[in-house]
């Protein structure tokens, strides 16, 4: 009886334990299935469903003839799911000769045990990608990724700009027009198998990417190439610190070429290095400098237009000019006696410019200078545009003597784009055109075309014509038996040299200059305005010997390129027969 009772007890105990175990399991099940339902549901969803961003193609930047300057191209990049790789050493030995990567480096990458895919090699050439594909390896895969390419090489590198590793614009047009170029990435939310691959024909949510818009520039790549070559040659010849050339169509304000040195190679490996990043800016719009004598064009335009002087107005040039407690002298001492306004430009007389400005008076002088766009950004669609510096009579730090110094481009700073815009107004008969570099934006959202914008009539057409003739005489007058550096045989061109000392904290550095030249042609129907700036040439400081020849070399190639017939064809033929 006692034995039976004992057995029953054991039975009860076993039953109780079993029930208890089931109860624990049931409660755990309830906890997991009901209490923690959302958490585990989310985990399962995350494992089975994965969202992937589909990058949008960045828009192409093209020159005026639709030649690509920057284009996004897909290349396959090789990734590995390292968690699934059993023998990384063997795999490394197979891949290393194809990828042209040391075996050891690959082994290290393949031995990394991480959930995220490991990048083995970026942007493979098509042949290499095909070789990898033929291997039919499970644990590695190719994924297409965009790379920004520059088919024209270094051409217009600063203008086009740089795209960062994250695909966003960092400088130039890539930065300024980033919102248009970037497009909108899409996404794919799809069910994945255990290997992370999308399950075929499973339910998926696909949002297509919207590609970026293409930019068509006003830049002519032939003009750009000519400009860059001549600038490079001048930089080398004069061992200069920096240089900028800008070419504009005076009738439309379209920028035809813009180049600066030093520059960078957009395909170089050190593109993001500390030495290269400072070169990203576009000096033609960002660097303001004291223009020196090229500013006399604006002074003379103002004085002529206001009727303060005529080309024949003469004054006594005895080597110095006193005004408002200061004395103006020429760069090279000269006291030629009576001097006309035309001779003022031909000889680049500071005294003559000061005479014209003071005859005009500060109110009218600064009113004209502002009308020409000096002291304010031009509004060109490029990043980092500087307004320059222009002190007005209303400014507390303005001194009456500033009128005299400003007249020949001292104490005022301008950007090359401001000067080119202002001189274009002289070339086209007095119309100030807004400079622009993007003529068309073409994308999935539509097409926008930018037309020339007339900002103001700053001087009368007659004034522009008179000043043009004066500037032609600057180039065509033979001084001391020497033909001027900017003269192109057979064509009438107009222009002005400038040699400005570099301002320092204690005054001006006499051993460092900015040699410049600005001109246009042919004067009968100007096709271009060219501005050349060479900073700190080592061999000779003068604009006449440093910058004017660059203008001549560029102009002599652009004139036939634009189909401009020579005004004096015999001169061209005579010159060519002498060769």
């Amino acid at each position, binding site marked *: 009886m006692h034995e039976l009772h004992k057995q029953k007890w054991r039975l009860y105990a076993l039953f109780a334990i079993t029930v208890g175990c089931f109860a624990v399991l049931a409660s755990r099940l309830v906890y997991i299935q009901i209490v923690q339902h959302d958490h585990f549901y989310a985990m399962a969803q995350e494992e089975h469903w994965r969202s992937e961003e589909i990058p949008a193609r960045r828009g192409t930047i093209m020159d005026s003839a639709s030649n690509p300057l920057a284009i996004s191209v897909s290349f396959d990049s090789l990734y590995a799911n390292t968690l699934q790789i059993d023998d990384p050493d063997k795999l490394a030995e197979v891949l290393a000769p194809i990828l042209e990567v040391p075996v050891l480096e690959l082994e290290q990458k393949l031995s990394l045990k991480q959930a995220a895919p490991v990048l083995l090699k970026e942007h493979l050439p098509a042949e290499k990608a095909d070789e990898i594909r033929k291997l039919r390896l499970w644990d590695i895969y190719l994924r297409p990724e965009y790379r920004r390419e520059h*088919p024209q090489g270094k051409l217009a590198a600063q203008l086009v700009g740089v795209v960062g590793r994250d695909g966003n614009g960092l400088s130039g047009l890539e930065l300024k027009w980033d919102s248009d170029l970037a497009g909108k990435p899409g996404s794919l939310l799809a069910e994945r198998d255990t290997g992370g691959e999308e399950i*075929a024909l499973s339910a998926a949510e696909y949002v297509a990417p919207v590609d970026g818009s293409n930019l068509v520039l006003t830049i002519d790549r032939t003009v750009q190439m000519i400009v860059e070559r001549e600038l490079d040659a001048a930089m080398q010849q004069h061992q200069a610190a920096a240089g900028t050339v800008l070419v504009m169509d005076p009738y439309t304000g379209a920028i035809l070429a813009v180049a600066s040195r030093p520059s960078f190679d957009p395909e170089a490996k050190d593109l993001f290095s500390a030495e290269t990043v400072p070169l990203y800016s576009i000096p033609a719009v960002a660097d303001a400098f004291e223009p020196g004598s090229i500013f006399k064009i604006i002074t003379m335009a103002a004085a002529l237009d206001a009727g303060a002087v005529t080309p024949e107005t003469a004054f006594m040039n005895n080597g110095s000019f006193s005004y408002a407690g200061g004395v103006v002298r020429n760069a090279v001492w000269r006291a030629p006696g009576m001097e006309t306004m035309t001779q003022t430009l031909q000889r680049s007389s500071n005294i003559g410019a000061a005479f014209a400005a003071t005859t005009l008076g500060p109110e009218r002088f600064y009113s004209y200078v502002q009308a020409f766009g000096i002291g304010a950004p031009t509004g060109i669609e490029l990043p980092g545009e500087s307004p320059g510096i222009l002190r007005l009579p209303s400014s507390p730090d303005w001194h009456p003597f500033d009128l005299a110094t400003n007249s020949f481009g001292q104490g005022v700073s301008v950007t090359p784009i401001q000067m080119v815009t202002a001189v274009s107004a002289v070339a086209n*008969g007095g119309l100030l055109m807004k400079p622009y570099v993007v003529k068309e934006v073409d994308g999935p959202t539509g097409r926008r075309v930018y037309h020339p914008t007339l900002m103001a009539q700053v001087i009368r057409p007659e004034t522009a014509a008179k000043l043009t003739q004066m500037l032609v005489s600057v180039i065509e007058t033979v001084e001391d038996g020497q033909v001027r550096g900017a003269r192109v045989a057979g064509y009438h061109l107009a222009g002005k040299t400038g040699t400005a000392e570099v301002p320092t904290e204690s005054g001006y550095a006499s051993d460092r200059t900015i040699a410049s030249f600005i001109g246009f042609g042919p004067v009968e129907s100007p096709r271009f305005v060219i501005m050349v700036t060479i900073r700190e040439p080592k061999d000779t400081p003068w604009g006449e010997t440093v910058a004017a020849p660059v203008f001549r070399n560029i102009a002599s190639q652009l004139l036939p390129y634009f189909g401009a017939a020579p005004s004096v064809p015999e001169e061209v033929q005579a010159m060519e027969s002498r060769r």
Partner: protein
Amino acid sequence: MSSEVLRPGLSVGRRARTQLSHLPVAFPIALVLAMLIGLLYLNQASVVATTGYEVRGLETERQHWQIRNEQLKLEIAQLRSLDRVETEARRLGLGPPEQRLFVTRKATAEEWARSPVAQKQQLDRSSVSVDDEQEQATEWWKVLLDYAQNWVTTRFLPKPDPGL
């Protein structure tokens, strides 16, 4: 003896027996049907999965050819770059012209529209102020008045004696 007949035909007992007698036949049929349906489903699922992976494969191939196409376009652009064209031209013995001959011809309407002179005229027209327009209008009336005056003079006023 009262025989209980529920309805004409079979009694309850016989009907149940008849239904049970169908069971050995119906059950295997149902089983076979279920298996067939299952097999059909499996086959369809397999075909769908295979087709799906084929579609994926074709999509990957399409993507591959799209990439190749893009890369070839890049290659074309690189081959058309000015540096490369110049290098090839020099290799072929070409160079800058030593002498130029200038020939003038009449421009077509399209060429004229593109020319700087036409652009200048366009700009001049767009920059004409209101005052200029009034002045132009006055000039137009002046011309008309001059014409009228001339007409009256020649028609109604006595002609000068040719002998004088």
